[in-house]
């Protein structure tokens, strides 16, 4: 079980959270300009790294706010927690 530090509520068990997949996936600025391939890519393709991964979590059973986490997908170590909208921190 992960221990996740909500930026607003502090450390809570993973059970209180809802997973939202990859962070920083921007909605296309000009959707009608996209080719079918680009649209499929936007809808269906996400990074799936073996290593640090920037992802979204929502504190569903707490403050109900969304935020971002960088987590290592092998060790599950949480390397950064930061509010949605902020750029991804540089992980050494």
């Amino acid at each position, binding site marked *: *079980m*992960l221990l996740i530090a909500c930026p607003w509520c502090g450390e809570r*068990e*993973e*059970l209180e959270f*809802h*997973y939202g*997949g990859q962070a920083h996936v921007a909605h296309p600025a000009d959707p009608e300009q996209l080719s*079918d*391939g680009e649209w*499929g*890519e936007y*809808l*269906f*393709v*996400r*990074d*799936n*790294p*073996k290593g640090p*991964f920037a*992802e979204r979590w929502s504190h569903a059973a707490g403050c109900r706010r969304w935020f971002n986490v960088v*987590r290592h*997908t*092998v*060790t*599950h170590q949480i390397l950064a927690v930061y509010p949605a909208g902020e750029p991804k921190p540089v992980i050494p």
Partner: protein
Amino acid sequence: MSHRLPEHPDWLWRTPDPRRSYDVVVIGAGGHGLATAYYLARNHGITDVAVLERGWLAGGNMARNTTIIRSNYLCEESAALYEHALKLWEVLPEELDYDFLFSQRGVLNLAHTLQDVREGTRRVNANRLGGVDAEWLDPDQVRAFCPIVNTSPDVRYPVLGATLQPRAGIAKHDHVAWALARRADAYGVDLIQGCEVTGFLRDGDRVVGVRTNRGPIAAGKVALAAAGHSSVLAGLAGLRLPVQSHPLQALVSELLEPVHPTVVMSNHVHVYVSQAHKGELVMGAGVDAYNGYGQRGSFHMIEHQMSAALELFPIFARAHVLRTWGGIVDVTPDASPIIGPTPVENLYLNCGWGTGGFKATPSSGWVYAHTIATGEPHPLAAPFALERFTTGALIDEHGAAAVAH
């Protein structure tokens, strides 16, 4: 068939050093990679083949799955693919001359809500129209078929009925792998363990081989069968795949007397339970929500599946858990596999089987071998091409694919 366990695997295949070049290199010696090599040789006469495995043969998800085999999927495309597999399972022990204890004891998919009942009866009708055996059982019939299921109306999610596929069942997974490996080896296929693919050899847009920790190996065609690591490998070839890797775990109890006559699955309360040939109860549930490659799952998933199992099977209350483990499964947005060529010439893809690929092992190998040998998708595989994520022709199996992807 005898029920003596087959001989120890050390003598079932050679362990050759990799040669410098092959017609086909298959990456991953799980069930799918081995079945692909077997059918490349058997159906297409292609025997200049190597199967490269970074760990040990069939030590990935093949060694970790709960061995449920069934073909009661909803969409025509999937039912056809899994039914092809089921028909192959029925002949393979004879054909491979190896008793891997395929036991057609049936699979019950329980319904606990009105929506489950509708989904289940719809799937039974769809299956029957498609020539797949399927029945709808009411709670009394469920009790008659599997007396240890709690069909009392007093539980939180009472059993309102179940679908039954009588021809479904389980098989001894490691013996399946050894049986396929032995025959592939006899055809001359090189099964090479401890050989990790670390990159691809390219000639412009074409793949012409692989880099490995045991040196470069040239190949006419390269076929991925790397399950949870498919997107890592595809990334080395410059491809991004619509798959996400998730931990999926299972557990077994101590050995018990034979008490559990069939396989029981419940999407709603979230557990599946069967009894292995030796007597352990084998249980699994859904994937962890987040991506991961750690080959272990969260403890709360175990708690969740055990509480569901206890409500359905009060008789198991005093059973001890002996062992838990996790695998890494590759999940696609429509819970269906991806099989076929890729935009990179000579590079073929077979992945995205998620939580349910063991049951497909023979047909996965059959259609993949055809696709590699002929360069054209096998008709059963054509709908599962990568292009469906561009055309939008998804095969949405989230309802029937497994217990919650």
